[in-house]
């Protein structure tokens, strides 16, 4: 054993004679320059067609387009630099300065790769501009007309309040119902078995049914059947109820995953201190689980928010319904774009809020991420 160990060490020492040569730079530099020039060309074409579409644009618009065209040329700069590094690499290699040549080669390749990365991004942007100007600007005309944006904004925004109300109402209920279902599903022992089964049946059912169908059935069914209490609820409350039914099933599974991810040693520690099952769950397990599931919870909440656009099927005038109404009047989709943008605008702050929450929690408990 010992013999072979030292033997292989000796042979490794013998193999050290030839140093690693620097990797080639010139081919990748040529490729980078080519890609940068082609992409800049594509961008120039796209900007030119945008210029044509705008007809006779103001001077500042022309200046802006020119500035964009110059920006599209920027990836050429690192590509040219790569050539410089290729030359130094060749010189150092000739002088047999291996380490320095390797360093030059790495820097040169890095520049070439940077040029290609930025050039491809320019190409994608050029593609998007070309798409927007295609068919002599018909696409832009259909989706983005300033006058329709102005005229529909107030109505759509007013209707969007309904979406926000339904979303917040359902989210608050889902937080509670989802946790109850998850805890039911995790109840121990023989006594808990029927409740476990019910929880599983509920999750299986309501996670499977499309939320638009649940909205439809709850919205009309409870009224048709004259179910006491429910028949007197406003459509908004029925929408909240329907979305709560659907999303509690998702969120129950998120909670369950969170609770099950807490190491059994935490249970053992809490129980060994004399805490009961319920107390352990409430003070030790669930608080830790909730901290872990915040990101997937936000996912489901964003899904719920988006599904408020479906409540039109039960006769509630939400932002999407309102925008379609306006859109069919003016024969243009700009009002619908307004709704889409509103959904994006309310989602982004939530994502940033969750990021901040997690960072704060990490710095508070001294945990590195």
């Amino acid at each position, binding site marked *: 054993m010992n013999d072979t160990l030292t033997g292989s060490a000796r042979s490794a020492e013998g193999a050290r004679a030839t140093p690693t040569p620097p990797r080639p730079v010139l081919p990748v530099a040529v490729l980078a320059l080519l890609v940068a020039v082609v992409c800049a060309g594509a961008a120039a074409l796209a900007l030119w067609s945008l210029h044509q579409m705008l007809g006779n644009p103001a001077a500042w618009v022309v200046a802006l387009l020119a500035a964009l065209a110059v920006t599209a040329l920027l990836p050429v700069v690192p590509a040219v630099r790569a050539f410089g590094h290729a030359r130094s690499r060749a010189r150092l290699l000739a002088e047999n300065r291996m380490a320095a040549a390797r360093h030059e080669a790495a820097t040169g390749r890095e520049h070439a790769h940077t040029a290609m990365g930025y050039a491809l991004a320019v190409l994608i942007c050029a593609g998007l501009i070309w798409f927007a100007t295609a068919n002599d600007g018909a696409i832009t005309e259909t989706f983005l007309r300033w006058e329709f944006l102005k005229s529909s904004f107030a109505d759509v925004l007013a209707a969007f309040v309904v979406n926000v109300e339904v979303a917040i109402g359902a989210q608050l209920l889902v937080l509670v119902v989802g946790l109850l279902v998850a805890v039911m599903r995790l109840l121990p022992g023989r006594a808990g078995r029927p409740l476990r089964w019910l929880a599983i049946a509920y999750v299986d059912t309501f996670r499977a049914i499309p939320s638009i169908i649940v909205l439809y059935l709850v919205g009309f069914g409870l009224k048709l059947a004259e179910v006491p209490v429910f028949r007197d609820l406003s459509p908004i409350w029925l929408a909240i109820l329907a979305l709560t039914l659907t999303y509690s099933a998702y969120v129950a599974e998120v909670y369950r995953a969170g609770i099950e991810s807490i190491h059994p040693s935490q249970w053992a520690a*809490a*129980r*060994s*201190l*004399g805490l009961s099952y319920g107390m352990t769950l409430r003070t030790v397990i669930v608080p830790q689980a909730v901290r872990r599931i915040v990101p997937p919870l936000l996912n489901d909440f964003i899904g719920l928010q988006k599904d408020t656009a479906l409540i039109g099927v039960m006769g509630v005038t939400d932002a999407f319904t309102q925008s379609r109404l306006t859109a069919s009047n003016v024969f243009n989709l700009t009002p619908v774009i307004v709704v889409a943008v509103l959904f994006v605008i309310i989602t982004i702050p939530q994502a940033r809020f969750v990021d901040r929450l997690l960072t704060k929690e990490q710095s508070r408990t001294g945990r590195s991420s």
Partner: protein
Amino acid sequence: MTFLEIHDVHKHYGDHHVLQGVTLEVARHEVVCLIGASGSGKSTLLRCINALEPIQQGEISVDGDVVSGQGVDVNRLRRNVGMVFQSYNLFPHMSVLRNVTLAPVKVGGVPKAEAEERALALLDRVGMRDKAHAYPDALSGGQQQRVAIVRALVSNPQVLLLDEITAALDPELVGDVLAIVRELAQDGLTMLLATHEMGFAREVASQVCFLHEGRILERGAPAQIFEDPHEERTRQFLSRVIASGRL
């Protein structure tokens, strides 16, 4: 007088027969060390004593009261029987002070101010008072384990179970934790330790039990076990420990 009595305890995990009839009596103020290879049943025995694991056969009684089997108020039992774990198991979302005061406040009905006062006094004793508001993840392993010992002690348990509490610590941190256990032994706290620290076991134990394949193969005074073991298995185990430089 026998304080803790373990009589013919059997424990199965499925087909795996972990404890195969363990019998042991512990008197008040005794310090009993359980030694033996990994998987010999040391930890399982400790977990059975405070009912973290149910036993299939036999009987365990604390202070004359049977605490195994159905219908026992395990939560009350566990306030009398403290436990410290190998991996500390502090609650990471709570400060040191809340970790320590959780059980007395939530279960013992002690007013918060009073519990905190007592907790701070105990934390002071183990040199952790200035970390009372820190969170476990900001502490070293040795510091976390000292907090875990305080957490187990704060409800005044009559017996303390220590499950390889230095096994996860860096060597230079072991001493601090063992010093605390030594002090507790001198104060007369009844303790059961599963441990690999043979030198320490020899120093503090009143009784040493060698476990092998779920049985107490040999038990006696530390001098007898370490210097004149009767069983061949004990001798083999100790010679392997000596070879690894831990005795």
